[in-house]
């Protein structure tokens, strides 16, 4: 049994616990440094994993020299490794954002950082899950840590309310998930995803399996905020503190999609037919719901919530490609390839946007908070513009390539059966509708709030951005622009990450 296989998760948990221990010793002033420490540890882990991958599978204690990447319910392949790096990057950005955001969190900073690390552990475990037990455990680890994180600002009613809502609905979803797992286990007799590939002995087994599968998809649907289960997103995004919302929007959604990808990969051809129709319906409805609701939205966080729902819809399009052809197929790989690229772009854009939000003083994040931002702080304005335009999917930024790849794989799947034309129309329409609210943000920055260009911006004071955050923002902006124009490096890296599906 190769212990090193789980070294990344172990490292994350140990550093979380370490932070908690250190918290006893550090004086009140030093609490922020814990955040920097946590971020530093995670970046160490990230660098190690990127540049020295053989540490994980190289010197396995008992095995005969060749690297074992398999464990019970756990698999560390290029696909999992890519997602782990995504989650590590997200966690680092959230930790640094939380340090600057510490002013509003006030008490118990160490617990905040520790919980972020625990949630990170859950996500990286989810990336490697190959059986339902690991799936359930990782999902629950993420959810429970987010219960606490969303309600972290005890003093404010909003945070508590968000926490409670997320708690009740999250618990209901996980109950549905467990029941689904039970039925699938009942039908296939084994917890492994691979078991889904075998044929069912009898008809009612098959019927049970279908019901179980639908319930599992429903449970995961809650995580990725797909249409019927996205009702919690706006309130929780608005109530939770900004770093948590960002982490929730990116981390838990990516974990949900990683699990769905692995799950769909193992499905039997007739099950694939079922999931194809289900996911097509979900995708169309999610895009429509997310785009339409955001049109009239004035609150920034809720706006990003609805935008997140819409992007979940687009990601589901990628998932369709996986289910179109039986077994491993080039178009399936292309679908996942597009999803993973889109997730990377989405992560950086959301993190940049929320970092900017943290630095905007303004209790209720209404659009008018952004008024005159171009004058008050050109850096924040430019980075927010870049992230919004990338989310809108306009060239030459990363988001455009993500959406382009998704549309390409969706078209690959849909062109043989013209009946699915409505989905293409909805997807294209969604992009156009989304421009309305994304450009509403641009309008708020550059000429919103009745600030005519002539009026000197001196009245509303300039925002000073701390040096580390400034560096972070510039880095995010540059990544969005650079990868948008020269994506070849990332595309190749994704190429072998998707080898599993080809």
């Amino acid at each position, binding site marked *: 049994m190769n212990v090193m296989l789980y070294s990344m998760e172990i490292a994350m948990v140990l550093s979380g616990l370490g932070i908690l221990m250190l918290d006893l010793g550090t004086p009140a002033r030093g609490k922020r440094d814990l955040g920097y420490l946590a971020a530093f540890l995670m970046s160490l882990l990230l660098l190690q994993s990127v540049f020295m991958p053989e540490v994980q599978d190289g010197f396995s204690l008992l095995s005969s020299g060749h690297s074992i990447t398999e464990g019970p319910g756990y698999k560390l392949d290029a696909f999992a490794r890519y997602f782990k790096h995504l989650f590590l990057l997200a966690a680092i950005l959230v930790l640094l954002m939380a340090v600057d955001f510490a002013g509003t969190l006030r008490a118990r900073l160490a617990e905040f950082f520790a919980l972020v690390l625990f949630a990170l552990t859950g996500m990286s475990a989810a990336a490697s899950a190959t059986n339902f037990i690991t799936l359930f455990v990782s999902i629950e680890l993420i959810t429970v840590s987010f219960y606490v994180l969303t309600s972290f600002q005890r003093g404010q009613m909003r945070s508590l309310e968000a926490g409670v809502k997320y708690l009740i609905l999250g618990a209901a979803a996980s109950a549905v998930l467990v029941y689904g797992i039970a039925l699938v286990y009942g039908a296939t007799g084994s917890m492994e995803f691979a078991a889904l590939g075998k044929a069912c002995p009898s008809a009612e087994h098959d019927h049970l399996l279908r019901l179980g599968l639908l319930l599992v998809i429903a449970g995961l649907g809650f995580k990725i905020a797909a249409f019927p289960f996205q009702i919690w997103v706006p309130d929780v995004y608005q109530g939770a503190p900004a770093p948590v919302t960002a982490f929730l929007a990116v981390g838990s959604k990516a974990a949900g999609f990683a699990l769905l990808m692995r799950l769909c990969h193992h499905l039997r051809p007739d099950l694939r037919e079922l999931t194809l129709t289900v996911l097509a319906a979900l995708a169309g409805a999610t895009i429509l719901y997310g785009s339409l609701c955001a049109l009239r939205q004035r609150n920034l966080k809720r706006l990003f919530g609805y935008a997140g729902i819409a992007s979940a819809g687009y990601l589901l399009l990628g998932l369709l490609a996986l289910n179109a052809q039986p077994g491993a197929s080039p178009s399936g790989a292309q679908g996942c390839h597009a999803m993973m690229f889109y997730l990377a772009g989405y992560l950086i854009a959301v993190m940049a946007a929320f970092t900017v939000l943290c630095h905007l003083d303004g209790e209720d994040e209404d659009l008018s908070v952004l008024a005159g931002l171009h004058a008050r702080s050109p850096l924040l304005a430019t980075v927010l513009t870049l992230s919004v335009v990338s989310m809108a999917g306009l060239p*030459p930024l990363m988001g455009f390539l993500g959406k382009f790849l998704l549309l390409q794989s969706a078209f690959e799947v849909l062109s043989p059966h013209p009946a699915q034309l409505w989905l293409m129309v909805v997807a294209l329409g969604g992009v156009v509708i989304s421009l309305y609210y994304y*450009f509403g943000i*641009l309008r708020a920055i*550059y*000429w919103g709030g009745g600030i005519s*260009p002539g009026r000197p911006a001196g009245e509303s004071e300039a925002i000073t951005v701390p040096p580390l955050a400034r560096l972070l923002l510039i880095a995010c902006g540059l990544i969005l622009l650079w990868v948008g124009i020269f994506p070849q490096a990332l595309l190749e890296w994704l190429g072998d990450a998707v080898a599993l599906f080809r």
Partner: protein
Amino acid sequence: MSPLTLIWLVPLLMALVLLALPARHTGLIRRLTLVATLLPLLASVLVFATLESAPAGRGTLATAWAAARSQSPQFNEAAAPLEVQYQFKYTERTQWMPSLGIGYHVGVDGLSAALLLMATLVAFAAACCARDVTARQKEFHVLLLLMAGGISGAFVSLDLFGMYLFHELALVPTFIMIGVWGRGENRNYAAYKVTLYLSAGAILVLAGLIGLAQFCRATYPSSELSGYNLLELYRMLSETHGTGLGEGLRPLILPALLLGFGILVSLWPFHTWAPLAYASAPTATAMMHAGVIKKFGLYGMIRVVLPLQPFADATYFWWHLLLALGLASLLWSGLVAMRQKDLTGMLGYSSVAHMGFVFLGIASLNLVGLAGAVLVMVAHGLLAALSFGLAGHLHAQCRTLEMARLGGLLREMPFVGTALLMALLAGCGVPGFANFAGEITVLFGLWKSQPAATVLACWAALIISAVYMLRAVRQVLHGPTPAVHQAYVDATTWNERLPYVLLLGALLLLGVFPRLITQKMNRCYQPTMTDKGLHAAHPAPR
């Protein structure tokens, strides 16, 4: 490094340089912008001039200079076979996204060289006319350079993905420019309307391109052909005669592309954004948009949709539809222009009407009509830029463009008045200007296949355009000067007059020597557009 890369790269790099400059050096910023638009202009003039003698295939400024002197077309051994077959010059090809099969591939033939020259000239004129922007010049000039670089790149790129990407660069700048520096009270509505219309058109085009690429990969599963390269698309179409374009969603590729490009160019039912946008945009943006960015849709139609014609749709249904819509935009916008009270509103609708001519030229499906369409595109680009530039100057002086409240400006401002008079006369097709040459060629081209439509087009070209243009001249330039008015300042200094003189000169030069363009146009080989092929496919009525 082919001169074409230089043409679109210089403005974008200068935009980055300007970003670094502090905002208070407005003079320096304006001069740098002028330089950043002048260099591409000179390069595109050189490219246009030496187009015949330059060797097909890879070419740099040095080979262009040598070709210019030697006057004899040399053979360039490094040229790729496809580039030689389709006579693309000054090409350059590098890897960009090999795993997606998308490469950076630029090249120019008669059609794109003419449009490129017009684009860079209008960009330079727009940079000169950006003088009337007083607030936040730095951001304005950065966005203007972004637009100029983007559209030049779109005209030279032979890779459909690159062409799309370059064109989309202009979307966000347009929104911000109309919103921040726009005119009139409903500029917010105008900004949103323009952006949503253009992105809807662009997304349709993207869907069409993806479909096309997917069709290419389906017919050539083995080769690493990506389907986004234009030349490979031509080769594939001529080899397989588009057999696979029938099943699945593929019959929708042609209409999607046609509709998408149509929306980008304000085809009739989707044209309401154009007049509103040009009326409320600042001068430079209106010049760039009405003059150049609008022509991308037409360029795309000629480059991508026209070669699909004989295969994708044997019944010519879509082309008859395009003809009908083109005729509708010609007549409808002309008639609506007669009722406009605002000068820029009238100019906006007249530019929609002129686009009607180009649609007719394209829908006539023969080389004569196509040559006319290109001529009208180039001529209208110069004319729209000139008239919106002058309208901008008038707006700066009289604070209003309500035609009823203006009058007798020919006496107040002799230079600007004469220039506007010549622009409006060129608009209604007076010979000597390039518009007439283009319109008459389109009419000749169209008569063969659709005599009835041509009669209506003649009526629109001669009568309707004369009525609204002369009505504008009568109200704005002629007649007694209005009672209440302060002294209007005419464009006296040279750098104020330069853009107008340049544009007028180009209009007159192309009006007297349209051969400069048509000669290069005929040389540019349209894969399926040989007259024999077309006439066989499209029998003349008699």
